[in-house]
């Protein structure tokens, strides 16, 4: 109950920020665009033709391909843009909690420091999940109703995006507790978000470097950090109903989140406010 009240307060605090409302507005706009862009002609209860942005689509196979394409597009847009915006919108949540005069109030309540930290973390996850699933479910429903093809794999997009956000937000929480600075935490988290795909090409980087130490260093970084690019690939495969070759990027990113949260909880426990 006490943890829940911290989650609710964090949720309420996030709502007060205009970024999430903008996010919601953009999501609604995309859905409305889909409603008006995808036209179906129904003759005697049968679908006679489909047009997208005025272009006619003939075969059912082509419709399925187009549907998977649209859903993949939205999912990737959400994966990159949604995570980018969500990190931006939640970057001040932990630093604002740590403000003198605010954190004191929380600690003086019969709530453990771990609950305070988890409440804040989960509050951010809840609001981001609501935003992401709003667009995924709303757009998925529009597309499915209009085409008559129900792609349940599309729902996985929401799950993967929220989990990826969870891993990156764990890093941002750690940095915020250490530095108490929202902008600094955000900058470093963005760096990881955009730098980790480069580690996929670490073999090419090794070729340019003389010492094998760099190899161990980049390998270490690769296995330690969230694998955002590969998570994007997993997301695309799930949306397109294709088999996922390796789940390692997902579980190792989740391990990263758990590790970061555990370290953060330890530091938070020891910190003076």
């Amino acid at each position: 109950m006490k943890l829940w009240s911290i989650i609710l307060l964090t949720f309420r605090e996030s709502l007060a920020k205009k970024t999430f409302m903008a996010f919601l507005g953009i999501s609604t706009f995309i859905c409305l665009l889909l409603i008006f862009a995808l036209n179906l002609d129904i003759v005697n209860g049968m679908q006679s033709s489909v047009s997208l942005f005025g272009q006619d689509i003939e075969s059912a196979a082509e419709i399925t391909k187009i549907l998977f394409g649209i859903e993949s597009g939205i999912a990737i847009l959400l994966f990159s843009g949604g995570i980018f915006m969500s990190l931006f919108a939640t970057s001040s949540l932990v630093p604002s909690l740590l403000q003198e005069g605010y954190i004191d109030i929380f600690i003086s309540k019969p709530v453990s420091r771990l609950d305070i930290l988890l409440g804040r973390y989960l509050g951010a996850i809840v609001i981001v999940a609501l935003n992401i699933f709003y667009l995924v479910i709303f757009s998925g429903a529009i597309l499915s109703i209009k085409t008559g093809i129900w792609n349940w794999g599309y729902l996985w997009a929401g799950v993967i995006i929220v989990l990826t956000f969870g891993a990156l937000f764990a890093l941002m929480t750690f940095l915020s507790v250490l530095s108490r600075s929202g902008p600094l935490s955000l900058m470093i988290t963005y760096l990881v978000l955009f730098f980790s795909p480069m580690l996929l090409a670490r073999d090419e980087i090794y070729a340019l470097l003389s010492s094998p130490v760099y190899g161990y260093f980049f390998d270490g970084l690769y296995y330690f950090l969230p694998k955002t690019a590969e998570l994007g690939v997993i997301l695309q495969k799930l949306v397109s109903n294709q088999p996922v070759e390796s789940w390692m990027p997902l579980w190792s990113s989740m391990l990263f989140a758990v590790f970061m949260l555990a370290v953060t909880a330890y530091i938070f426990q020891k910190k003076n406010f």
Partner: protein
Amino acid sequence: MFAIETQHLSKFYSRGKVKALQNFSLTVEQGKIFGLLGPNGAGKTTFIKIVLGIIHPNGGKASILGKPITDYKVHRHIGYLSEKHHFPGFLTAGRVLYYFGKMSGLTGSALEKRMDELLELVKLSDWKNHKVREFSKGMQQRLGLAHALINDPKLIFLDEPTDGIDPVGRREIRDLLQLLRDQGKTIFLNSHLLSEVERISDEIAILKDGRLLKKGPVHEFLAVDRQYQLKIAQEKNTLEAICQKMSVTLSQTDGAFMISVKNDEQLNELIDRLRSSKVLIRAIVPYKISLEDFFIDVIEENEGDGQ
């Protein structure tokens, strides 16, 4: 069981260069109003933050209501008004009490009822649905006080509770604190307003550079033994003559005479002699110094002992 008990509590900053608390031992009895006084940077807020678990001490032990300060569950019986409390501006007064009441373990109709009672008590009922950002400093302070009382605490820590509040509001808070004390609650008060502390505290402690300089009941510190302030009409020469005969020390300050007697018998004899000499006594009151004077004396006595 003491409300607060600390033994050799120490807190250092900057690798020991700044000593916020040094070997600080203190006990506070239950059901009293206790005032902690000290100049800026004396360690008053640090002390409160340590016993509430907001800051970790470098050494020593402390307990509140018989439980070690590391046990956060004891906070169920604690209320706290921070000196620089900051409630999110987008929340209404009602929501502030709702969220922090829930964190204190209150739920449902009990919480709603308590919220309304407290808003009424601090005269913010009409502002229940207004956002905190619209509140004046005094209103925020009153909301902070309501928040500190939401869980009907046994022990209440108030750090500068009358800060930003006008004289009428201050009197209301003073009355409230006395009412809470009469209900058996312990109030631990940090305040720069020494006149406020003097009026309501049962006991005080003076802190300087993290060290405890004095602790004891207020009346014992302020009463000056066997000195009385005497107000009479005119007959100054008669008074001087009688005092000289009786070997009573006489001085004059602020239009009143100050007499220093050896015992109660001598005081009564002096009164008898003055009355038989037809001296009209207007008032005779035991002399007390103000808490401010006492505080400054103690601080000056210990000037330079800090390090």
